[in-house]
């Protein structure tokens, strides 16, 4: 699953810029397929960013977040080499995770 999130954490001055790109269809449940049958909702509900194991950002999303969601945030400090982890869980209970080192 780790390959499903691409993360970059870069130290800029005293802030650490975190950028994460997840692979997920983010279906709203309102669209219909070619046969006119509704496509069931499938979207990320919860995203957690953690720095060295402690949560630094908790996000709750609705279906209105774009497909293959992008999340950017800034942490305070964090020396180069620290671990930044991003994980998500969708409305069907599927999960994804990714980890990187601050550089």
């Amino acid at each position, binding site marked *: 699953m780790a390959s499903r999130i691409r993360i970059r954490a870069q130290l800029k001055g005293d*802030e650490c810029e975190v*950028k994460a790109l997840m692979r997920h269809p983010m279906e*709203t449940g*309102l669209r219909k397929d070619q046969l006119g049958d509704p496509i069931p909702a499938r979207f990320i*509900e*919860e995203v957690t960013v953690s720095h060295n194991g*402690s*949560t*630094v*950002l*908790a*996000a*709750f*999303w*609705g*279906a*209105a*977040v*774009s*497909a293959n*969601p*992008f*999340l*950017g*945030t*800034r*942490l*305070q400090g964090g020396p180069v080499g620290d671990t930044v982890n991003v994980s998500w869980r969708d409305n069907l209970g599927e999960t994804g995770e990714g980890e990187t080192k601050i550089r």
Partner: protein
Amino acid sequence: MKSQRFRGVTRRTLLGMGSVTAFVAALPSQVWALATRPAPAFGATDVDTVFSVLGSTPKHSDGIVFSVPDIAENGAVVPVKIEIDDTVLPGVSKLYVLVEKNPNPLAAVFGVPENTRPYVETRVKVAQTCQLYAVAEADGQLFMVSRETKVTLGGCGG
């Protein structure tokens, strides 16, 4: 012998106290976090309902820097950025992104702990030309700014 036992008891007590302290110290990190998904706010179908679920209609604040494109060529991917000027608006603990004319206006909620800058970037779907709102919660009060994004999908311009 007596002092030995006394020391032993003190050590036990201290150990006990230590674990209690550790437990209490662990609590504050949980307090800021959104414990559960605010489902009623996500289920609301218009902006006013979202605000009433959140508690009140937010006041305007210049401390919120909300960047959205004026014109979005593709409403399915609209980049939004919320930045808080904490000299104007300190103590922000939550950020909300709302899209006025979406079936469910509330798009995302972010819980921001103290050691994180109140800064988030993401991409949202915008069904049609409408107002986008950035709402910040600081000390239990709500603040917002709104910006309009024109959605031109279809090629004829907005």
